[in-house]
């Protein structure tokens, strides 16, 4: 039996997410049916076996990107859709110029790094991309679904990780149970299992940043804006983080990551150098 798109169950949500990610509707329907069959064969339900539908859809799409589509049922997602475009963006606070003439285009399946010295406006640029700060000049075009991971803060000190998942899930219209399930799946990808009853303020700095990362991704954004999100990560988590960035890229998401670690740049597709001082001339380097 084919999943009914009007049904609010796992197959329908999975199919809808596949279509949203660019899969042909017929192929999305076939993949949804295959996934349900796979769960039935394993004696489980799809949610338990494969996880939240929107996450599994992204995972599957990233796997499918290397496999040619069967003839007649559509193809892989159309690559290269522009998710963010900045044209001649500038920002000044009274007479102090923070940014000037910034151009940047990020497409689906791309990772862009923003580098530069302290105080050159990297975080301001990320806030402009998010829409939390308005540019003084220039134009910004951006996809609607965006997630922001700040350098620090961004969590409620007295709430546990599960309560954060519930809160951020509610903001995105997710039911509490689904939000917690999604959060736990995302945390597991960073080798983290949130402890019950532990408030965020009692987490180590690195674990709090993992929570920040999960919250930035919980509502399944198309574009992720990361402001040096790896503060406090140990070596293993740091590697997990970059593996996750690559997985996002392969799943057709766009990523903008502020960094000052030059060895990070081997993971990225383009580098935006904001220079050594506020308002310095900007160079965009495609890799």
């Amino acid at each position: 039996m084919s999943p009914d798109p009007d049904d609010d169950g796992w197959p329908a949500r999975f199919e809808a997410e596949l279509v949203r990610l660019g899969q042909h509707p017929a192929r999305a329907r076939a993949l949804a049916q295959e996934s349900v069959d796979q769960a039935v064969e394993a004696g489980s339900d799809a949610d338990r076996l494969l996880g939240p539908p929107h996450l599994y859809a992204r995972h599957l799409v990233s796997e499918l990107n290397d496999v040619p589509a069967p003839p007649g049922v559509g193809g892989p997602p159309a690559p290269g859709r522009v998710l963010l475009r900045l044209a001649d963006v500038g920002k000044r606070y009274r007479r102090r110029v923070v940014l000037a003439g910034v151009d940047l285009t990020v497409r689906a399946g791309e990772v862009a790094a923003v580098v530069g010295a302290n105080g050159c406006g990297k975080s301001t640029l990320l806030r402009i991309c998010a829409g939390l700060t308005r540019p003084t000049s220039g134009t910004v075009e951006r996809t609607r679904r965006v997630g922001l991971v700040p350098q620090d803060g961004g969590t409620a000190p007295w709430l546990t990780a599960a309560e954060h998942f519930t809160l951020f899930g509610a903001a995105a219209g997710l039911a509490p149970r689904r939000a917690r399930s999604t959060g736990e799946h995302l945390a597991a990808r960073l080798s983290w299992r949130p402890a019950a009853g532990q408030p965020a303020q009692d987490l180590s700095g690195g674990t709090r940043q993992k929570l920040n990362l999960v919250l930035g991704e919980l509502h399944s954004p198309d574009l992720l804006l990361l402001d040096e999100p790896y503060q406090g990560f140990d070596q293993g988590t740091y590697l997990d983080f970059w593996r996750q960035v690559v997985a996002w890229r392969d799943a057709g998401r766009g990523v903008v990551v502020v960094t000052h670690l030059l060895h990070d740049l081997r993971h990225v597709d383009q580098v935006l150098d904001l220079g050594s001082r506020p308002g310095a001339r900007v160079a965009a380097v495609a890799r």
Partner: protein
Amino acid sequence: MTAVVVAGLTLREVARRRAVMVLLVGMPLAFYLARRDLPGQSTRMLTLGIGWAVATLTLFVVNAQRGVDPRLRLAGASVTALVGGRLLAMTAAGTGLAAAFWGMVAVLQDVRRPWAIGPLMLVSVLVGVPFGSLVGALLPRELEGALALLTVVAVQMLAHPEGLLAEVMPFWSARELGNYAIDATAVGDLWKALAHAGVTWTLATGATLALFARRLQVAQYPEP
């Protein structure tokens, strides 16, 4: 839905701050105990103490979420849900506190209209919550906000009750209702107090929402 989740989680956060909970109860109680031999003075001080404690706690709750709110807005939450949820939670917490103190005063003090002590304390909570959030929206640092609230409550205590200064202060309604409950003044005082509380609540809530709507505005960029 989002407002209800925000309200529930705000209550959990507040409940986990044990020292804050102790001070929330202890501060009005200290005001009361200082003049417990005088029913009028002690009840009026208790009422102002409730308003001050609730307003200060709301100020801290609102300011504690400054890092989280922009991210929640990006995830899709509305300003009304975020601010409304917190105001709802603090009103619920304050109402519980007021109910407990109402019971205490009704048992221990000889007032002319004990039933009116309940509305008296409730008005103090209903005014204190949006007023605390408004101060939090105007003054981003907690210390500055707490000092501003202290100033307002102190002026409210010291100003002549019949003077214009007292009437334009936010907790004037509680003082007026106190006259009705404790000294059994005319029913006109009750209506004046309720009208003042309604106007104060509306202005403070509206101004809080407007300020947060401005602060948490997310630019609506066109899609590429």
